[in-house]
């Protein structure tokens, strides 16, 4: 069993909210602001990617091509770095390879290829409510009416959300998505790995987390219902209201929260700010994981020495130690099953598993 070295994590400026961390935070945040609202600032950068864009898409680059390329590069390069750091750990090995594959192939090359053959640009690795349009009436009908592939994609979307997701989450916990498939998770696990220790572990942060994430979930469920009602009445009743609602959600949650804050604040608040406080997909999967899943992190009897490595390196800010030192299993809605608590434990106390026995001992 190989071990991970976290030597100097809290001595290096970049990983301990030092000057370079703030610098990167400002650059990342600035990049997102430009990307969403002032793309002209990125123009010179975008033009640099024209050759690649012509090669892949036979058209000039735009800001979204630039973003997708950066994103995929980050996941791949930092994914390889992650594989090196956690070398010898089989769980991280398979998980990271799958993450890189999902981002590089499903969320980058496939959509590009689809648009090149004049099909709708579809992302097989994203689902409602994270990819909110995938259950919006207008987008769904547009997809459905765009030919055979569109029908298949619509079918995929609905089946994944309503059938596959609950089954997979029942068996494996939310990790099957959040730390094996999802692009946001992929970035957090790879580029964000150096910042996982910055997540706030306090009980107070946990309270905020629950309020915010379930509010976002309500907002998106409300929005989706509203759009369907509106579509049923052919836009006569709530046309302008639902349009404004959708626009507001897109601005505040889609861009500001998941983009600017979610990624821009990595070096300050840790790598899973969006996943933990905002993502409605994580909220739904979390509720399932908490109440209807076989997944848990088990604690190895009395071997915990309360050292705190697990809590410190939990990117979701779960106080893992609080459970481990009492010999309790960890069953938390927010756990994305990244497995790092188990890897950093110096006494072999924690194990991710989908077991048969009861999850909580009384």
């Amino acid at each position, binding site marked *: 069993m190989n*071990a991970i070295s976290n030597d100097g994590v809290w001595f290096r400026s970049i990983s301990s909210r030092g000057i370079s961390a703030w610098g990167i935070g400002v650059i990342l945040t600035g990049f997102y602001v430009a990307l969403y609202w002032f793309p002209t600032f990125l123009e010179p950068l975008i033009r640099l990617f024209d050759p690649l864009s012509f090669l892949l898409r036979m058209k000039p680059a735009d800001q979204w091509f630039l973003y997708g390329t950066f994103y995929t590069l980050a996941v791949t390069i930092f994914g390889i770095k992650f594989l090196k750091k956690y070398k010898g750990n089989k*769980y991280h090995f398979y998980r990271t390879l799958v993450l890189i594959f999902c981002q590089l192939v499903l969320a980058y090359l496939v959509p590009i290829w689809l648009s090149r053959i004049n099909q709708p640009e579809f992302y097989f690795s994203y689902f409602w409510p994270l990819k909110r349009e995938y259950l919006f009436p207008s987008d769904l009908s547009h997809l459905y009416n765009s030919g055979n592939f569109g029908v298949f994609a619509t079918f995929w979307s609905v089946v994944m959300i309503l059938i596959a997701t609950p089954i997979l989450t029942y068996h494996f916990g939310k990790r099957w998505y959040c730390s094996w498939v999802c692009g946001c998770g992929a970035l957090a696990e790879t580029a964000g790995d150096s910042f996982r220790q910055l997540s706030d572990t306090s009980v107070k942060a946990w309270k905020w987390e629950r309020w915010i994430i379930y509010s976002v979930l309500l907002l998106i469920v409300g929005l989706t219902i509203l759009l369907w009602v509106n579509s049923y009445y052919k836009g006569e009743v709530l046309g302008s209201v639902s349009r404004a609602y959708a626009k507001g959600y897109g601005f505040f949650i889609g861009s500001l929260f998941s983009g600017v804050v979610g990624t821009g604040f990595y070096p300050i608040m840790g790598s899973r700010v969006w996943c933990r406080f905002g993502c409605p997909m994580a909220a739904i999967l979390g509720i399932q994981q908490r109440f209807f899943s076989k997944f848990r992190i088990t604690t190895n009897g009395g071997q915990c020495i309360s*050292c705190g490595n697990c809590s410190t390196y939990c990117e979701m800010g779960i106080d893992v130690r609080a459970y481990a030192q009492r010999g309790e299993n960890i069953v938390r809605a927010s756990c994305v099953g990244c497995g790092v608590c188990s890897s950093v434990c110096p006494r072999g106390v924690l194990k991710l598993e989908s077991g048969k026995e009861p999850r909580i001992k009384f």
Partner: protein
Amino acid sequence: MQKIIIVGNGISGITAARYIRKKSDAEILVISNESEYFFSRTALMYVYMGHMKWEHIEPYERNFWSKNRINLKKGLVTSFDFSEKLVFIGNEKISYDKLILACGSKYKELGAPGEKTEGIFGMYSKEDFDQIWNWTKGAKWRAPRITKATVIGGGLIGIELVEMLHSEGIHVDFIIRDGSFWSSVLPSLESEIVTRHILSKGINLITNEGISEIHSTEGKVSGLTLNSGIVLNTEMLGVTIGVEPNISFLQNSGLKLDKGILVNHRLETNQKDVFAVGDCVQLEAPDQGRKAIEPVWYTGRMMGEVAAISALGLDGEYHPGVWFNSAKFFDIEYQVYGSVPVKEKDELKNIVFRRNDDVLRLVFENDKLIGVQGLGVRVKHEIAEKYILNGANEVELNSKWKELLFDPEFYALPALATN
């Protein structure tokens, strides 16, 4: 309402306090001179190496104590009056109804000539930790104030101190008494694997040696003469040859002492309403297979629970059950359950499973399981304990040994070694 004073805020004292609060409304006061708040002693090394900050090794949020009405006081307890039920912090006196002593260990000194010089440290308390930090850490990480250090004593703390100093970029000479690392406890296969691992890290392991004299220059340690006559230069000496109960301040207090504070299975001392727990304790009659002094985290925690029960007059005795312990030697995890003797005997049979340098060892005595040990293999506590208590035989474990494993998902099974 009765008032319970606990002297010492380590794992045993704090566990006692928590359990007293769980079971009663008694007034609780914890006195410690070491730190404001309870911290995980075993995690000090991770703060030194930069894996965590100090706040991370405090297992409870700071409002936990007031929320649970556990009063904390910083101060050095100097003496007691057991007949008047008083604790003295210098001139200040505080009365109690029940007293729990949890005053821990201190590191054993070498007893070599020249030991009273600057730059010689143990590695047990926060004070030791602070001293090592100040002596070795420079303005920046990996720009240490010293370039060369020596650690003597090849036990669990010794190797941790070596790892700490090594992580800072300090060259370490590691002197051990045995021919290979911890060979008094580890079977030779495991001992050799760990020894190779230590050497692969670039540590200068010096075996079969001891220190006969310590040299100093301007009051600071500067060199060592080993038993064989070899002279080493050094800028720091870590002394990790073991710990002993911290009881020197209790001599002549009226407490019955031997190597530690003597207690029975209720953790009662010879003084009325005075209990003792953790590293400072010596059991008058330890259970079979257990030692009178067991200065480890786990026994401290278990004793804390019993002391709480005992002090509250509830039923319960200290019977820790099957021995277990764990450690980490640089990157190699180690867990043990029950008894894994080093010496070969006719009635003992060892079955060994391997996965490269990972070793799972099952020890049978007269065809009954008495011990399980994992080196780089995680072993499930409940299962190991169950099979040891049941004295499971080899045939039974042939089909069930896989239940013992606690490795992460996707790990290959260790394979039966044929030697």
